[in-house]
């Protein structure tokens, strides 16, 4: 179990390798978030801001919740901050379990909590303007499915 908030890029393959050292691990699921330009709107970069004192604790809490709920042998959350260009990796989560269903569900759970409860904010930079990304109602909906 580890969480990292950093400006540096990360190596997905190396992180997943680290998670599979336990001989009972048969399944690793990873999610990678990438700076995208979905609407072909000329996005140049994405600025990632966090609340430094709060963010590690928030990510640790989310990871502990996942670990209490699924059979995880290892997991990792890495989230970058700073100015990231189109196509750069923003963040990753990965979950390792003996069972693929546990690995999948825990990864989705981590992402849903991270989207709505970890103190990060995104600002999109275009050629001639910049815009804070709005939180999405669908992300809150997604979170609710774990709370029944």
């Amino acid at each position, binding site marked *: 179990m580890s969480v990292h908030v950093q400006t540096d890029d990360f190596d997905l393959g190396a992180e997943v390798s680290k998670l599979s050292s336990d001989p009972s691990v048969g399944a690793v699921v990873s999610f990678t*978030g990438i700076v995208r330009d979905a609407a072909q709107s000329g996005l140049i970069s994405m600025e990632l801001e*966090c*609340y430094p004192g709060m963010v590690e*604790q928030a990510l640790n809490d989310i990871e502990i919740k996942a670990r209490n709920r699924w059979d995880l042998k290892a997991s990792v959350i890495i*989230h970058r901050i700073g100015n990231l260009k189109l196509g750069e990796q923003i*963040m990753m989560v990965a979950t390792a379990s003996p069972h693929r269903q546990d690995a999948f569900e825990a990864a989705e759970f981590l992402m849903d909590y991270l*989207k*709505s409860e970890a103190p990060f*904010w995104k600002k999109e930079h275009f050629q001639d303007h910049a815009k804070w990304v*709005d939180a999405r109602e669908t992300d809150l909906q997604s979170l609710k499915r774990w709370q029944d």
Partner: protein
Amino acid sequence: MKLNVLYFAWVRERIGIASESVETQAGSINELIDELCAREERYAAAFSDRSVLRAAIDQTLVPFEATLTDATEVAFFPPMTGG
């Protein structure tokens, strides 16, 4: 009571500073916002719609009704957009 008050994302941009020390007798987050809004227009602008804001006391998310007893750090920010 002396509080360290932090602002993030567009809240920080509208108020124009990232943090400040605030001397206050406010009993709750809501009362603290009332005090700040009474100060200057830029605070009133930042806090004009409380439904699009979130608050944390000592790095834990709280509702705006939360009391400030024993608080040392209060943060205001928009809904998170990580991931």
